């Protein structure tokens, strides 16, 4: 049985449709990351599942139950908000126990479970503090503990790491993954950070303008992006995209190409700058990031190409290089639709 199923769900916000017939299935115990740029409708997916926004069409099933018409409180989900939504006037332990206390679980028992949940996420030392006295990372942990404590059917996490600084974000990312593995809960995690998605996810659903662009494992998303959008959104710097019949001809065994305009895509790390039969290109600028350098090039026809090279062997700005890439490292897309072309 699936943990969560969205069946042709559409949703509108103030008259504008923000989700277009989204189909998503999250297996029980799976961590699905919903990835997309701002405004793609990621948070709306969570809000529809939680019942905070109504659907205009489609059904939502949680753990086999059709919850489409149920109010949020009956759906047995818990949510971690981007802002954490902690009650500022309650102490940490009161915050964690809030959901149980309003459900009339005896106070002593609620506090006991709140303590246990706090220990799970490592904030047991903060129980008597108030949210105003906590750092961002500590608030994050409290919000997590509050989500954990009730043992819901689905955890919904709305960009929970986006308010943390980089070091803490990396640390919490790892902890979140470990936590998921330990409790084996069904989780939907929303983020715009592709690294976070690739590291955390069992599967990733890439969302664009309220439509699911691709669902797959991080490996599938990386190796076989379903569209130019996915190809360019995942990976930094973004994948290079050039017309297949342009100045740059990949080398090696060419696949069978149809008689229609195609685009070839290849990641910066697939580019070599000293190919004997490569296309001539000018180095516009070079960014050095530790051991790596990114060379921003313009090939003869004026198209931009980014190449990742070892910092020690980076070209000089203004130099002419010969850009080469192997067919094996390229992706092909229909130029008109942007969808992947599989030979």
């Amino acid at each position, binding site marked *: 049985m699936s943990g969560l199923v969205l069946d042709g769900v559409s949703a509108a916000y103030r008259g504008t449709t923000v989700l277009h017939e989204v189909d998503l299935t999250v297996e029980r115990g799976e961590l699905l990351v919903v990835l997309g740029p701002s405004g793609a409708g990621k948070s709306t997916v969570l809000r529809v599942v939680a*019942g*905070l926004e109504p659907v205009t069409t489609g059904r939502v099933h949680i753990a086999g139950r059709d919850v489409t018409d149920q109010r*949020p*409180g009956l759906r047995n989900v818990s949510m971690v908000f981007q802002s954490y939504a902690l009650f500022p*006037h309650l102490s940490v332990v009161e915050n964690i126990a809030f959901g149980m206390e309003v459900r009339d679980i005896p106070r002593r028992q609620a506090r006991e479970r709140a303590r246990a949940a706090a220990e799970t996420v490592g904030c047991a030392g903060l129980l008597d503090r108030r949210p*105003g006295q906590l750092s961002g990372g500590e608030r994050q942990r409290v919000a997590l503990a509050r989500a954990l404590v009730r043992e819901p059917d689905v955890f919904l996490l709305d960009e929970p790491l986006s308010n943390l600084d980089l070091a803490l974000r990396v640390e919490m990312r790892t902890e979140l993954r470990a936590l998921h593995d330990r409790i084996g809960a069904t989780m939907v995690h929303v983020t715009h950070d592709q690294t976070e998605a690739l590291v955390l996810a069992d599967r990733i659903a890439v969302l664009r303008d309220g439509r699911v662009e691709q669902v797959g494992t991080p490996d599938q998303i990386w190796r076989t992006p379903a569209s130019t959008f996915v190809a360019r959104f995942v990976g930094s710097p973004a994948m290079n995209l050039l017309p297949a019949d342009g100045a740059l001809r990949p080398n090696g065994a060419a696949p069978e190409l149809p008689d229609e305009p195609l685009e070839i895509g290849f990641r910066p790390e697939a580019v070599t700058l000293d190919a004997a039969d490569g296309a001539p290109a000018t180095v516009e600028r070079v960014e050095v990031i530790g051991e790596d350098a990114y060379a921003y090039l313009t090939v003869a026809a004026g198209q931009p190409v980014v190449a990742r090279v070892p910092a020690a062997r980076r070209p000089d700005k203004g130099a002419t290089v010969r850009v080469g890439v192997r067919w094996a490292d390229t992706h092909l897309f229909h130029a008109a639709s942007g969808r992947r072309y599989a030979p």
Partner: protein
Amino acid sequence: MSARSGPGLRAPQPRTEDGPASARSGPAAPQPRPKIRTVSGPDTRSRRQLVLMLAPYLVGLVGLVLVPAVVTLALAFTEYDLLRPPAWAGLDNFTALVDDPIFRVALLNSVVFALVAVPLRVLLALGLALLLHRRAVGTGTARTAALLPTAVPEIAYGLLWLWLFNPLYGPINQLLRIGGEQGLTVLGRTPPQWLTDPTSARAGIILMSLFTMGETFVVLLAARRALPRDVYEMAAIEDATGWDVFRRVTLPLMAPVLALLAVRDAIASLHFTFVPAFVVTDGGPPPYATTYLSLFVYQTGFEYLRYGYAAAATLVMMLLTVAAVLVQWRLIRRYRRLYTF
């Protein structure tokens, strides 16, 4: 002029040197900085500007409030009838006040009014604010309606209620008589004689004061709308009932504002009884049922020309206000310790 415009023009310069603008401009900024000017210049100048801008207010405050207050304070220890010069009376006025049955009634009336009307006004304003904070059909009109009575000039408002309270043709009693027979209510009781029965008159004044809670309502409306939405969504996900949400979320989050408004209302309550009591009930019906401290002071001073005595009563009124504020302030401080945002 030149002497003043000189530093005035230069003033922003030293500030930008430390400001974010220079941080962006990078290492090309080491200019000679006029050290002495930056340290003393803007400081004294801004202080002078502050004094200048505050001057009209300060002049008004001193001339219209502070001096009369001090004069009142002094008059409270004299006997003064505007005709003869004030004569020193020591504490005579105050001992007389203690023995004055009318003053005691007025004091009691004022305290009872504050204790009943202030909580009711704040509660009514809170109820309306919570009802009307969402966008929905008709809320705009309803908000305007809630605010409107506050905008009516006080005397007109008083005259309006004089008509509303009229026992025979006033709409309130006509409404109460609906369904009843021979001029009685449905329950077979005589409708309240608003202006002639002491208890009804006191209730009437409180009723009048309830509809002028517009300002309190507006502040509470703004306070409610400023509360974070996600906290309420969190409560919805946890299946908190409306009562739970009110008790555990809304009330504690709005408590600081509510407390502040209650303090303000308690202070104001000593004053806003004046016009209703003056226009609608004229301090009656006997025995002095709606003679509040403010009306007592007015009548003593301007009708009986006992300025010294009136000043002493004013002083008592002021002390009462201070005491009320202190009590509430202590309560708020105790509560605020639990509160750290």
